[in-house]
């Protein structure tokens, strides 16, 4: 514990902020905008970490984040990835329309189907979105390693953020490329998300292909040295 705290408190001599990097100096800590994190103080923070937080400067909160219960960091990340040329308004509009479309379809299914099946139908679009992205996450990935002049595709484990990124990226590229030019993005997205929620559809298929390639290149797994 002492070692990790010591690494956080390594002396940082202030110097002029370089032009190409972050405007904050590395001494600044990330903000925590959710209200619930402060309601239970004894939960994760040790006295040292709490003292650290009180004495260090904190970065400004982003424009995406707020303390609202409707604010979801994963949805914000997805909106940013969908955004093109900085058009956040359009990306957010598409997202809200997608969630609305999902809700409409599920509610229709809820009311049209027999009463016995109503328990199993999930109507919360946020829950469907999270579960769909969770189902699309690959477990193992491939990376190119050069050995003896040839580059081999070597299977490696992926970090959590990389897996989330790949799931979202596949979802977005799938909906952009394989859609009829007359269908709207939100329609195609809602179809794909509902399919992924049920472990079907093209994105799940792509994930399985990815796993199969990693399995096929299992022989080269020993090339990994880290």
């Amino acid at each position, binding site marked *: 514990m002492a070692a990790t705290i*010591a690494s956080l*408190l390594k002396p940082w001599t202030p110097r002029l902020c370089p032009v190409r990097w972050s*405007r904050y100096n590395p001494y600044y800590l990330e903000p925590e905008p959710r209200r619930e994190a402060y309601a239970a103080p004894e939960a994760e923070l040790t006295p040292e970490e*709490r003292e650290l937080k009180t*004495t260090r400067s*904190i970065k400004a909160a982003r424009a995406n984040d*707020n303390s609202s219960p409707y604010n979801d960091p994963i949805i914000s990340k997805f909106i940013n990835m969908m955004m093109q040329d900085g058009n956040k308004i359009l990306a957010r509009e598409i997202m809200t329309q997608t969630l609305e479309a999902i809700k409409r379809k599920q509610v229709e299914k809820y009311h049209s189907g027999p009463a016995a099946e109503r328990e199993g139908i999930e109507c919360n679009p946020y829950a469907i979105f999270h579960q769909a992205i969770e189902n699309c996450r690959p477990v193992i990935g491939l990376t190119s390693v050069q050995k003896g002049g040839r580059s081999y595709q070597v299977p490696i484990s992926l970090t959590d953020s990389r897996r989330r990124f790949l799931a979202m990226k596949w979802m977005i590229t799938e909906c952009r490329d394989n859609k009829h030019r007359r269908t709207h993005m939100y329609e195609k997205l809602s179809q794909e998300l509902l399919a992924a929620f049920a472990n079907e559809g093209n994105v799940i298929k792509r994930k399985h292909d990815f796993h199969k390639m990693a399995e096929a290149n299992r022989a080269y797994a020993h090339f990994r040295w880290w």
Partner: protein
Amino acid sequence: MGAGLNTCLPASVKGSRVKYLLLQICVSSRVQVNKAARGPEKFSIEYIRKHAEEFEVGKRRLANMMGEDPETFTQQDVDRSIEYLFPSGLFEKKARPVMKHPELIFPKQTAAQWDKDGRPFHFLFYTGTPSFYSIMHDTFGKVLAIEKHQDQMRSKGALPQDSKQISLGGSRWLLKEELEEVLVENISDQDYSRFLQLMDKLLSLPFCALEEEFVQRFRKQLEIQSTKQEIPDVHCDENGRSYSQAQGRRKTATASVTLRDCGSGRVAVNGKDCLLYFPILQDREQIMFPLHFAGMLGRFDVQAHVEGGGRSAQAGALRLAIARALLSFVSTPAEVETIRQAGLLTADPRIKERQKPGQAGARKKYTWKKR
């Protein structure tokens, strides 16, 4: 001046005796003096002590001159008085008249390092930086002592699982410059990093709490950031409603906000309702963020004036201004600390990155041609 000359001048030839006057032009042999080799001017301890006494006496005299109480005359008051009595138009602040304690003016010097026979007092004198190396030597001695203590405890079987650790949360290591000031010696970057490595080694041992006092000598306490926040004053208008005002900035947008208590949650920006001024939901969420975080959404009426920047920058400026104005209505310092940790009180320093020469934009490069 020339060499000595013995000139014989013939006296008057009137008499039979010729007197010769011997003139000797004064001789001075030139002595080469190298003032630079003497090193920086050295001030003895008695000299500094004498000047310190004179400074104390002078400070009391100055206080009496200015008509103030000599007991509570601080250095700030001294500076103010000197600036009043000796107004100077010089641009270089260091050249202006100054009256400070001699310890602040004269550079710190080490005491005599060797006795009258030329033998050094300290056993590490020939390292060149005896204070630094003596600290390293002491620290390593303590490391060995702690390890020995640990072995003794282990042999007795009394090794506690969770031993008391030194709390390092509210302090940081002394910077290299600060350490040099303490040691009155110059040390290199490598020496400084070796010093930190040795300290980390000491702290990694389980029984390091035994040497807490020694370690704290090299740590500087950090001040709590939330105490540095400026909380705006609460005024009362003619209707009896209390209000506070604050400003905020983001990129090139500036906002000034009046937060009135006993309101209904109405927000007016540049005379318009915020729903008309900010049609985008994200901007309205940003304005509501500080009020929702503090749990005071329907309590205040917000009157804001914002100009400059774009849509998002104006919303960010408003958010900062509202958060700052909200501090005066927040009850406890712990609440101020939570608002600070939510990132609401930091002015966002991010600006548009400049274009670089030889490139089209900040990051975009011109087409790369192989030949």
